[in-house]
């Protein structure tokens, strides 16, 4: 219909250059785009943190104003969660999952490209608020009614709402894609219980995403109606309960925490076996515990609300369910240690980061159990003790694992090894600085320092440990600089890695580095867990992995690039700004997106040759 009345521009064909990057639907290129973009955004979130640590290094400092401070912690939290850790995870999902399951691409390559461009649109939208009258300033949790127009008349919150909606679309698109890819595109013989752990955790994470994001989407829609059209969802004066926002936020927010940590656990479960030269200890239990964590993540959200007055019964129930989560988490930690036990452990940088993850995650887990005790949490809620806990989980956990993942898969992605000597400096600096930054926060928290305060008096006795934490933060920034140096240096002149530098166990190591566009010349047949290891050690004689001579390479039809995902995302971005500034612009943006969706639907995956 429309496609036949509107002349559709020719399909993009550029094999290289900027147009290729803009129109690519190759999962590996999209993974790289995701990773690089998320890392740049991680740096911006880090700079926001450094400003805060500078302000808090000394009592009564005046480096930033209280208003800017509030914007800084809001943006730091939102950035790190939605623009850094989640998309860095998605970067590895994109690059690695099809390789691990023996597929040539994801199930919906164009949806994948759309997911990236929409993520970028959301990031641009959120970050641009700094330059368009001020960033959001109500915290990443945005508790009503402080996000209401009476208390927050500027556009900051509007930017927050709309960018999170756009990012939500991006995350959902990616999550649907990976659910289908993992269910439907596994190599023959790769049953669920033969899937690598990283694939498993990606699958669980994606399921969590598609179930959790609609909740925050609706909550944000409701807040948007309150702010834009004078509705009453969270207006106490109209009888509404602002607690509804907290419930909706944390029904989403707690699964979100597992969305951030489960991929990290998956990464660790790949690296530790590889460098211990042993299969993952208790594979079924590790898988099951991941599934159980995800499932129980839905039963604990009110532990973020122990002090709002839910009553002793509700608090007790949520305290108990929260404590119960420690069990599957413990199982994972013991299983990693069981994997290393009697292994032949090679402490490469990736392995160091992984062991660092385990050590730090134990601390974060234990302080988590402390918070789960609702009664004593009354002294910890909203203090720096919580800040310490969550950074042990998200930095000590997620970021350490993501850094490990970079060191682990960099050779696969670039064909070059990262420098191990710089890597070791990188690890120890990160490990020490991380503890220097976040461990003192346990002290200041128990010493009565609330979160989100821009200043404090000398008489409070918080000077020393705040100064230490700030020093740690700048040291941490230095360790990230070392990391960047290592990446750039290794990309340009790192040692050539070959296809299997670590004596890997999973399918991605069976193909060349970097992999060809079609990944597998011949789709492997899997007959065991750790199939590539099995083939190398010949323990299962019939394992047939990789090794295709490339015959029939020319018969492999890869999906072709497309303009439309990018155009839809641009439409969404324009629509987002339009909703804030001018409805007419929003309509234009919507129309662009709609037309592009039509064009996309009528564009075949491959240009038909037979017609």
């Amino acid at each position, binding site marked *: 219909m429309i496609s036949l009345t509107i002349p559709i521009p020719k399909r993009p064909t550029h094999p290289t250059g900027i147009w290729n990057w803009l129109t690519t639907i190759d999962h590996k290129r999209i993974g790289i785009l995701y990773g690089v973009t998320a890392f740049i955004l991680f740096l911006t979130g880090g700079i926001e943190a450094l400003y805060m640590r500078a302000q808090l290094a000394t009592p009564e400092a005046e480096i930033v104003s209280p208003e800017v401070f509030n914007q800084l912690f809001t943006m730091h939290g939102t950035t790190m969660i939605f623009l850094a850790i989640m998309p860095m995870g998605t970067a590895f999902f994109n690059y690695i999952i099809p390789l691990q399951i023996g597929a040539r691409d994801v*199930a*919906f390559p164009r949806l994948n490209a759309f997911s990236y461009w929409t993520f970028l649109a959301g990031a641009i939208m959120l970050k641009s608020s700094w330059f368009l009258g001020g960033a959001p300033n109500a915290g990443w949790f945005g508790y009503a009614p402080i996000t209401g127009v009476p208390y927050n008349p500027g556009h900051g919150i509007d930017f927050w709402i709309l960018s999170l909606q756009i990012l939500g679309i991006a995350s959902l698109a990616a999550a649907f894609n990976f659910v289908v890819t993992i269910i439907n595109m596994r190599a023959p013989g790769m049953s669920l219980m033969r899937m690598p752990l990283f694939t498993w955790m990606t699958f669980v994470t994606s399921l969590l995403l598609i179930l959790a994001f*609609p909740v925050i989407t609706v909550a944000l829609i409701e807040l948007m109606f309150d702010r834009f*059209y004078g509705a009453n969802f969270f207006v106490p004066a109209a*009888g509404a309960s602002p607690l509804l926002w907290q419930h909706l936020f944390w029904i989403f927010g707690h699964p979100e925490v597992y969305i951030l940590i489960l991929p990290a656990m998956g990464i660790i479960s790949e690296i530790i076996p590889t460098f211990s030269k042993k299969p993952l200890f208790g594979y079924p239990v590790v898988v099951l515990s991941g599934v159980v964590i995800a499932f129980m993540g839905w039963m604990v959200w009110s532990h973020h609300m122990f002090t709002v007055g839910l009553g002793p019964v509700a608090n007790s129930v949520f305290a108990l369910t929260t404590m119960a989560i420690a069990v599957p988490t413990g199982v994972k930690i013991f299983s990693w240690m069981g994997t290393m036990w009697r292994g032949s452990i090679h402490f490469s940088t990736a392995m160091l980061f992984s062991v660092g993850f385990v050590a730090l995650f134990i601390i974060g887990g234990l302080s988590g159990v402390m918070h789960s005790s609702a009664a004593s949490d009354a002294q910890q809620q909203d203090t720096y003790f919580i800040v310490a806990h969550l950074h042990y989980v998200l930095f000590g956990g997620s970021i350490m694992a993501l850094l490990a993942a970079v060191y682990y898969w960099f050779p696969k992605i670039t064909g070059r090894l990262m420098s191990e000597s710089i890597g070791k400096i990188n690890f120890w600096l990160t490990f020490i600085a991380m503890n220097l930054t976040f461990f003192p926060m346990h002290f200041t928290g128990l010493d009565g320092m609330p979160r989100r305060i821009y200043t404090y008096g000398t008489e409070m006795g918080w000077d020393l440990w705040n100064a230490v934490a700030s020093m740690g933060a700048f040291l941490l920034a230095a360790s990230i600089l070392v990391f960047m140096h290592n990446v750039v240096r290794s990309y340009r002149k790192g040692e050539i890695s070959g296809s299997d530098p670590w004596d890997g166990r999973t399918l991605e190591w069976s193909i060349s580095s970097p992999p060809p566009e079609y990944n597998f010349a011949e789709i492997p047949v899997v007959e065991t867990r750790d199939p590539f290891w099995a083939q190398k050690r010949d323990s299962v004689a019939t394992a047939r992995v990789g090794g295709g001579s490339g015959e029939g390479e020319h018969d492999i039809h890869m999906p072709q690039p497309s303009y439309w995902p990018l155009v839809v995302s641009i439409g969404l971005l324009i629509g987002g700004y339009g909703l804030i500034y001018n409805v007419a612009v929003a309509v234009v943006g919507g129309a662009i997106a709609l037309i592009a969706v039509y064009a996309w639907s009528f564009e075949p995956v491959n240009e038909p040759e037979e017609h």
Partner: protein
Amino acid sequence: MLEAGADPHGENSEHTTTGLNHRKLLMWAFLGSDCMFFGTLIGTYLVSKGRSLVGPYAVDVFDIPVTSVSTFVLLMSSMSMVLAYAALTRGSLKGFRIWIASTAIMGMTFLSFQVFEFYEFANHEVHFKCSTPISDLTEHERTFIDKCAGQDASHEVEEQHGLTPRTNLFGTTFFVLTGFHGAHVTLGVVWLLSLLFYSFRGGVTAKRNLDVDLAALYWHFVDVVWIVIFTVVYLFGVFPGF
């Protein structure tokens, strides 16, 4: 890949691990996700129920017989949708066109009812005779009872007092919930019409029926959501004490 990955609908050239089509799997995952979407909206409606400080309330504005008719229409559209798909798989393109057109028409009928309903609510009139016993008046109507002061029993009170999303919490939650359902229906109608037009271009055939299958799943989902909304919002809504 899997040898002879059977495709249940015979149109798909890709072979998949489970034999299930990618897009159909995506659709079902999306519907599972959409359950959470409407679950949140309905949850919001129920949490906010009984918290409005001013009228009109559900009992003032709802007209159950009218909504029952539109509910019935939407239910029947589900039937004609499934018949459209059945006709297509049997190879009857003509049957397919007739049924899908009637589905779209019923969808539009439902939407017209909704527009009519929204309009009525927004222009709701309080209307009662001063002779009506107070116990027969709704809570909202009673707030107008002072208009009867000094009037005889036959006096009629008429007051324009509409319900919008801004009026009260009930208005906010009701309009946004049913409005988002209406938006889903609208999208469905556009989708069905696109398929209808596409069928004249030869894009819909018995072999390529997956496009219709997906649209049908979506359409039925919109229908089952309405089944819940009709019960929880409308029927429970005017039921006193719930």
